[in-house]
């Protein structure tokens, strides 16, 4: 059996190599590759091994990136130091993963699983599984949950405010949350960028350096000959928010 290891930390790689040799004495370890780049190069020049051990976090990226350039058909045992996300993904797949420091028993179990799978599954089944896994990982990233309630400071207490009552966030010395009835609270955000990260872009729009406004707060927009826009907010809100010429188009698209 031919094995390739992809692992960026030399000490960890040499230990894994020894452990594999012990558990699988007749196996040949063809290469220990320290980076995504080295792995890509190796796979374009060599036939695939029977089994690949691959660290998820590599020094130059995440090993899943390997499948963008080449797609190895061989079964893979992933290794990872700590990654709840990956662990969750692997649970729904039958391809194995090992937590570092790698436990000897776990390694043996993974190898056993590999031998079993090899007997019963044609190669492309593993490939399909891997595709499903990567899709899962991907959609996990896209299906981001947006924040729907925000904690604000009211006297000595923290009070939740639901996203439906938010008119806008605005940055002065700190980030304020202002509700549709014009109540001003100190938000729990450090920066507007941080807020932007967790807000649903369908509802909230980053108008300028100072404001993120909610769709429901917009009453009307006034256009200027310069291309700039001024947004009037629904009463009782009193302020107006400027949108630069550069952002005007994307703002109108967002508004509908």
């Amino acid at each position: 059996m031919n094995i390739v290891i992809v692992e960026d930390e030399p000490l960890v790689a040499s230990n894994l190599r020894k452990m594999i040799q012990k558990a699988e004495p007749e196996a040949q370890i063809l290469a220990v590759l320290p980076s995504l780049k080295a792995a890509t190069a190796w796979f374009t020049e060599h036939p695939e091994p029977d089994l690949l051990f691959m660290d998820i976090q590599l020094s130059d990226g995440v090993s899943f990136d390997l499948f963008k350039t080449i797609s190895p058909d061989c079964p893979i045992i992933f290794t990872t130091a700590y990654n709840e996300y990956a662990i969750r993904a692997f649970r729904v797949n039958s391809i194995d993963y090992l937590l570092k420091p790698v436990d000897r028993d776990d390694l043996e179990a993974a190898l056993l699983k590999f031998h079993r799978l090899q007997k019963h599954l044609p190669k492309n089944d593993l490939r399909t599984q891997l595709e499903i896994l990567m899709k899962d990982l991907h959609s996990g990233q896209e299906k981001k949950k947006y924040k729907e309630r925000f904690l604000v400071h009211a006297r000595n207490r923290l009070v939740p405010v639901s996203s439906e009552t938010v008119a806008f966030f605005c940055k002065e010395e700190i980030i304020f949350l202002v509700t549709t009835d014009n109540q001003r609270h100190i938000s729990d955000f450090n920066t507007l960028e941080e807020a932007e990260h967790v807000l649903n872009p369908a509802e909230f729009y980053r108008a300028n350096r100072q404001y993120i406004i909610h769709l429901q707060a917009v009453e009307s927009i006034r256009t200027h000959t310069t291309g700039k826009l001024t947004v009037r907010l629904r009463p009782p809100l009193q302020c107006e928010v400027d949108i630069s010429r550069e952002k005007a188009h994307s703002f109108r698209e967002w508004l509908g």
Partner: protein
Amino acid sequence: LRTERLERDRTNAHYENLKNQLNPHFLFNSLSSLDSLIFENQELASQFLQQLSRVFRYVLDNKDKELVELDTEVKFISRYIFLLRTRFGDALQVCIDLEEQPMSRRIVPVTLQILIENAIKHNTINEENQLTIRVFADDQYLHVRNTLHKKSIVETSNKLGLNNLKSLYRYLSPLPVLVKEEENTFAVSIPLL
């Protein structure tokens, strides 16, 4: 004034969290390396284990302090760097270039560790692309500058580390934390207190 105080408490709380969770990646990766060292080089393994405990002890001992002398933080950071250098070898170069004078100034504990960890988290480290970090100071600032070769994906970044440091120092110093990204370098400057 009241809002100011609330805000400050909040910033502090965020920072507490940051310090308390010395990155779990760091712990488990260090343990993996240790697993290997135990067979390859017992002497180094023992040294590695001791430095690892000291790093964690420093974080525990200092997490409640508002400020520490730069000297103390630098001693801690040398141990942290020893661990990293054992893991990454020559691909990681850290140069601490500090004279006596700034050593008695103060910083928020674990600041330096957070900055070095950031550099490691965001940059490629291998033989082709060495990561070089330089720590130096002038009258007002402690500078941490590193070569820039960004990883394509950083899985565990919540982008809060630097922002929290920035807001925390806003209450401690009239000078702002400075972040400067250029084509090949990334530098963060922390006001010395």
